[in-house]
């Protein structure tokens, strides 16, 4: 019975979105204007002169870029909606970064590669099926809203996979490991969904 008690007058700080925007908010989500910071640990301090980004695993030959090399890769601007599994969505976020398609042009994929694990500077991992990061659906971003990406939001670079819940968009990402089998990452091994499509509400394992 206590489970159904409704607190008089409580609505939370969620705001209603305009009708045109409502169609862009997945089920169970609400729109926010600020950019909440979520983290499983302290912000890592990443020295740019020792930073690198690597693609490895089921590829013919792994490839790494240092910071200067990474900045020379063809970059694009992306304006996308993002959806956090903790129920907030933020519309029209503006990023600059390198498409994962561009990065993968530098390696030859092993035909068995079917999944990817994004790994990060401080030990966080997240897994996705390979097709979810191809064809313009994922990029590695180093600018947000026209400024260098703040460390609290994952700077110097974070993965952005906007069509999946935002925990897949690993902060402080330093590499992608191509895999033949799916391997659950940091949250996926603790009850969160291996895929995480917000439009299907794939929040938890078994959704």
């Amino acid at each position, binding site marked *: 019975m206590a489970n159904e008690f409704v607190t008089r007058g409580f609505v939370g700080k969620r705001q209603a979105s305009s009708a045109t925007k409502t169609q862009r908010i997945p089920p169970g989500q609400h729109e926010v204007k600020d950019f*909440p*910071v*979520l*983290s*499983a*640990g*302290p*912000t890592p*301090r990443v020295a740019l002169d020792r930073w690198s980004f690597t693609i490895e695993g089921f590829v013919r030959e792994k490839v790494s870029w240092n910071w200067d090399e990474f900045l020379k890769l063809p970059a694009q601007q992306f304006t996308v909606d993002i959806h956090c*599994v*903790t129920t907030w969505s933020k519309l029209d976020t503006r990023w600059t970064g390198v498409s994962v398609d561009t990065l993968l042009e530098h390696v030859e994929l092993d035909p068995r590669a079917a999944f990817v694990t994004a790994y990060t500077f401080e*030990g966080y991992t997240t897994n996705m099926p390979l097709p979810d990061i191809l064809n313009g659906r994922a990029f590695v971003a180093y600018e947000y809203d026209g400024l260098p990406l*703040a*460390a*609290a939001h994952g*700077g110097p670079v974070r993965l952005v996979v906007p069509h999946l819940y935002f*925990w897949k968009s690993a902060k402080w990402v330093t590499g992608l490991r191509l895999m033949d089998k799916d391997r659950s990452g*940091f*949250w996926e*091994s*603790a*009850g*969160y969904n291996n895929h995480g499509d917000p439009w299907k509400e794939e*929040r*938890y*394992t*078994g959704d």
Partner: protein
Amino acid sequence: METEADDVNRAMMLDGNAVAGRFAALFGAEMTTSLTECASCGQDHMMGALLAFTHAPGVVLRCPSCEAVMIKLVETPRGVYLDARGAAFVRIAR
């Protein structure tokens, strides 16, 4: 880049006390005075002294000595997931 002192993630850090209610509901016992050992560095601490990160999809408890992840707790509609692979042991008092 921010310095350690103005790290918003560190400023939002709590400690094991902050999740005492969830653990008490789960284990049926007060857990903050339970001893636990970090599997990474071998230091022993009481659960109440672990560093807690709660602004996340679940609760993450880290070792106050080396900051390695010790315990993750996620409450889902189908069950509570407890990942304690970073803890060598948790002693639940009799």
